[in-house]
């Protein structure tokens, strides 16, 4: 996939929270979900997902349970905690503000400035 964008620092956590907000998922599932909801436009090194997951668990934003995957493999499932849900809401808002501000700044015409 030649046109994949590098992730900005700090955005992986947000993507994980978003992916998990749609229902409990194991690590590989989270990766697939992110690919699906972003239209495969983001380049994520597969292993790099896990430190992010452990960090979020440690911050009590995610909780884990061991379960069985659709093709019968034992896998660890992640789901949002209440704090995680709150964090996702806040981060989404702040991301939207940032994105629209930067978008506005970049699309400003010389005479408007």
């Amino acid at each position, binding site marked *: 996939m030649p046109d994949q964008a590098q992730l900005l620092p700090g955005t992986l956590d947000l993507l994980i929270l978003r992916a998990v907000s749609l229902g409990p998922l194991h690590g590989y599932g989270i990766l697939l979900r992110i690919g699906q909801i972003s239209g495969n436009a983001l380049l994520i090194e597969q292993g790099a997902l896990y430190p992010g997951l452990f960090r979020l668990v440690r911050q009590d934003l995610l909780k884990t349970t061991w379960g069985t995957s659709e093709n019968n*493999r034992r896998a660890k499932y992640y789901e949002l905690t209440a704090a995680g849900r709150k964090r996702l809401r806040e981060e989404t808002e702040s991301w939207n503000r940032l994105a629209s501000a930067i978008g506005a700044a970049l699309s400003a015409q010389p005479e408007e400035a």
Partner: protein
Amino acid sequence: MKLIDSLRFRIAGLFHRSGLNKDMDDELRAHIELRADDLERTGLTRTEAERRARIEFGGYQRFKEECHEAAGGTLLESVRQDLRLAFRILRKSPGFTTVAVTTLALAIGANAVVFGISNALLIRPLNVPDAQSLWGLERGPEKAVNQSYPDYLDLRDRNRSFEDLAAYNVTSVGLNTGNNPTAAWILETTGNYFDALGVQPYLGRFYHASDEHGPNSSPYIVLTYAYWHAHFQDDPGVVGRSVQLNKHPFTILGVAPRDFRGTLIFLYPDIWVPLVNQERLLMTLGHLKPGVTPAQAVADLNSIGADLEKTYPKDDSKNDLCAGSPGSGGWVAGPSSTRISSLAGLILLAACANLGSLFAARAADRSREVALRLVIGIETNAHFANVAYRSPSDFTDRWCRRTHGQRDVVARFEPVASSPRGSTYCACESRCQCLLVRTVAGRFERTALRHRPGKAGITR
């Protein structure tokens, strides 16, 4: 609460490292398996699918380490690992370890002695009521602690700063409590000694100023608790009993409380005796009156001293007095304690210098080992810690890592590879050692580069 939680998490992580480890392995492997399942469905063989899943996953060990770090167990764990390695390496060279440990033990011993002496001299006061207001008199530029009896009488009777001034002197006598004369340390004191200090008897009574009627007028003694306990088996009937002091009969008046061990820091006497020989030189002490500062007391004493100088120009020259630590027997006088401290400092310094050169020699010996470590991909940080933990001033190293920031230290490692004489490391106490680490690391790095031509510098 957050801090406690985090600590608990870390400690739990430390003890359940193996459980956590297995958990992580299971999870990461599950990921690879799941990915391989998907790849297999695209028509690859199982082996090829697994191979490709592993490649796509990326550096397995690196991510696992990062997971540990994210889970919060790494700092303690890595310190433990480094200490274990240090211990193993030290065990491999017992000669070196013995020398290092002995050097450290001697230096620490010297320090303990100095602490013991300064504890006795400076920190722990005499065990009397209201010890803060108790001062001893010192005289002249040498801070002599002894006064003559006539001078003592003048100072005692004419000063307006002390509640009372008592005087005493230490000597040893032959003491016979039955049929076994033994040597005993006694304090010969003026009659007002116990009253001036404010000490109450444990048993019987003490003697007072009113008991003093000139030489040989008061054949009484007071026992210390320790002497009474050791020689009279805590017998309360001891009061009134007669004992022989240098073959003269004396009557036991009472026993002092257990915590009161006289007014000398270096010597606990066995008994107190009223002063019978007025020819002796005496140490003098007393409680300041409430509201009187030591400086005021000194001025007061010196006005008396000046008067004595005028009255007895032959005997009392250079009589400037000052207030000092009571019971030191002249020991606390500045120079001697400074001398002890500097001696201990020198010993410590010598020990550090010795150890430093030993470690420098060993660090040079380790170049092969560390080159190997760099080649197989040890993190620069871990390597740095590995050198630092076993270096003499571990603390300053870590301090310098903290003040300069971990990243900075690593960054400063980088130019080393290209130009070994490049940047100065940092201007801190452990400069020599840091330079050593740098140079050594530079050599290691260059060695490593030969083995790994594709990789320039230490990346992080």
